[in-house]
């Protein structure tokens, strides 16, 4: 067993406990700033991870721990950096939001950190037990985070809906794991990959795989399992929604990639049609349902379903180009979505609901926030030269390259383009509300604290950086997905 591989996870869990305990000794008025401390600590861990160039541990680089359950390779390192960055930005946002949390601000911070720890474990999961426990660590923490403002009925309702549907999906996943393990006798993904080819005709095994996919589909909000998304996005506190949109979805995708391409590649190879159909319907469903929405967070919930569909394009392509495009798109999605939710949290702080009309006059109240939200919407819509455009370009390219194999891929690419065109309508509805609304409810300028300003400028820089100079991240993503295909020789 190699504990040093897990030093990052151990530090994050320890940080969560320290934040929880610090609450006992800190006077009430200084607890709020604890979030900045935690965000700074996560930033330090991220820097240490980056500077250690490809190894966050002394042992140096790749390896497995707990008998192959926990794997440290290019893919997990990529996603761990992703989650740390997301966690730090969400904590800054949570500090900004903390005046709306009646009691237990430090608990809110520490729960975010524990969810982050679950995501870090998910990035390294190479075994069904690890997959299940890490996904539940994320989900159960999110039940609490979703209804943390328990004075609001909407938050409680969102929490209960998430709870019932989340528990349902985890029941499906557990049953699927039982069936897959019962037929093959393997929990470990690498061992399963060696025998999965013998079971491609076994109905019980295939049922198990479908059930596991149902559980993962719930996490990423793919088509038949997307019902919870709009309600939970709308009702949850804004930092939770942001973390749900970025962290939870990315954790679902890293597990999906590992499950489909490391554990059962021989089964996945036959399922291109299923993935194409799910991806296409998810794109259309998300985009069409987003059109009539008036609540900004609900609109972003539907848009997040649509983006799950775009990300599934890269999974459906079943090439390493598609998988690296997924990673790249997620990186762009991180900056874009966090920027959007940050603006929502700042602008809507005195309003009961996050109605789009509340954005009226934002251009006069705070040009920076108006520009940020505009950039975020434009990037989500996929207009060059921003991050969203290049990500979509890579995903579509990966799908069209596969078109020669199966003509369904051309239909899928066409569906995705239709989805992008539909999405322009509602994204530009938001931009219109920012700049061309007549009746602004309030005209007072919005104050932005310095850490918040840094986070916003960082997000904007990220959106431009990924759109204009994609080389560095793309190379990282490409080397990361190599780990999926040759688990023995994971590159870094």
């Amino acid at each position, binding site marked *: 067993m190699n504990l040093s591989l897990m030093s990052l996870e151990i530090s994050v869990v320890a940080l969560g406990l320290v934040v929880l305990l610090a609450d006992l000794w800190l006077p009430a008025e200084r607890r709020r700033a604890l979030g900045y401390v935690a965000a700074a600590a996560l930033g330090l861990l991220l820097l240490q991870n980056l500077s250690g160039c490809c190894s966050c541990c002394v042992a140096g680089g790749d390896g497995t721990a707990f008998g192959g359950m926990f794997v440290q390779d290019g893919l997990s390192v990529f996603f761990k950096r992703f989650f740390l960055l997301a966690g730090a930005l969400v904590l800054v946002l949570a500090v900004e939001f903390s005046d709306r949390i009646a009691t237990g601000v430090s608990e809110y911070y520490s729960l975010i950190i524990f969810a982050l720890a679950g995501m870090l474990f998910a990035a390294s999961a190479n075994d069904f037990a690890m997959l299940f426990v890490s996904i539940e660590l994320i989900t159960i923490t999110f039940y609490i985070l979703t209804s943390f403002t328990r004075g609001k009925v909407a938050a*409680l*309702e969102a929490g209960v809906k998430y709870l019932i549907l989340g528990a349902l999906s985890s*029941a499906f996943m557990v049953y699927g794991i*039982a069936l897959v*393990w019962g037929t093959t006798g393997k929990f470990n993904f690498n061992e399963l990959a060696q025998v999965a080819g013998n079971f491609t005709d076994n109905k019980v095994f295939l049922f198990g795989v479908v059930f596991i996919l149902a559980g993962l589909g719930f996490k990423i909000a793919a088509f038949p399992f997307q019902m919870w998304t709009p309600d939970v996005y709308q009702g949850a506190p804004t930092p939770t929604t942001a973390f749900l949109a970025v962290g939870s979805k990315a954790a679902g995708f890293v597990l999906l990639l590992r499950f489909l391409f490391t554990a059962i590649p021989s089964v996945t190879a036959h399922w291109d049609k299923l993935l194409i159909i799910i991806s296409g319907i998810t794109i259309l469903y998300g985009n069409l349902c987003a059109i009539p929405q008036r609540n900004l967070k609900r609109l972003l919930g539907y848009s997040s379903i649509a983006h799950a569909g775009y990300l599934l394009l890269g999974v459906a392509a079943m090439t390493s180009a598609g998988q690296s495009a997924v990673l790249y798109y997620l990186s762009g999605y991180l900056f874009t979505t966090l920027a959007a939710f940050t603006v929502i949290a700042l602008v809507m702080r005195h309003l009961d609901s996050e109605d789009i009309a509340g954005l009226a006059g934002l251009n006069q109240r705070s040009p920076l926030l108006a520009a940020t939200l505009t950039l975020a919407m434009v990037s989500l819509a996929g207009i060059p030269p921003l991050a969203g455009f290049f990500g979509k370009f890579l995903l579509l390219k990966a799908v069209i390259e596969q078109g020669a194999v199966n003509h369904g891929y051309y239909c899928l690419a066409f569906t995705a383009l239709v989805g992008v065109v539909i999405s322009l309508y509602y994204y530009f509805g938001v931009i219109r509300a920012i700049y061309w609304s007549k009746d602004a409810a309030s005209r007072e300028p919005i104050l932005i604290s310095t850490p918040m300003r840094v986070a916003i400028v960082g997000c904007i820089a990220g959106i431009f950086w990924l759109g204009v100079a994609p080389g560095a991240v793309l190379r990282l993503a490409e080397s990361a997905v190599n780990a999926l295909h040759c688990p023995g020789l994971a590159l870094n």
Partner: protein
Amino acid sequence: MADGRWGCALGAFPHLPFPISYLLYKKMNVGLEHYLVVSALLFALGLLGVITRRNLLVMYMSLELMLNSANLALVSFSRFNDNLNGQVMVFFIITVAAAEVAVGLALIVALYRKRQSAHVEDLTSMKL
């Protein structure tokens, strides 16, 4: 013919309840398939409960039934395949389910205090 068979099953072991007496009469060995069928039935019953019941607590109970059906499947696979890993997994599932229940019941109680109701029809504050 069929009558005779059922009748014999009842007559041969009059002191035992019918399904068991039938199994004994048929000299059936209870094998992996039987456990799996029971576990699939439990799973289906749980799913049916979640879909048809409208009370949050009953729905939540049905969800626990679904989780336990998976446990039964894991344990029986483990027993019949002589592989203890499945039973280890069951411990993980039980632990996680306990955590989930703790959080879930707290949420349902909090909602009940706010709305004086635990019915899903009342969860309608968020709509288009």
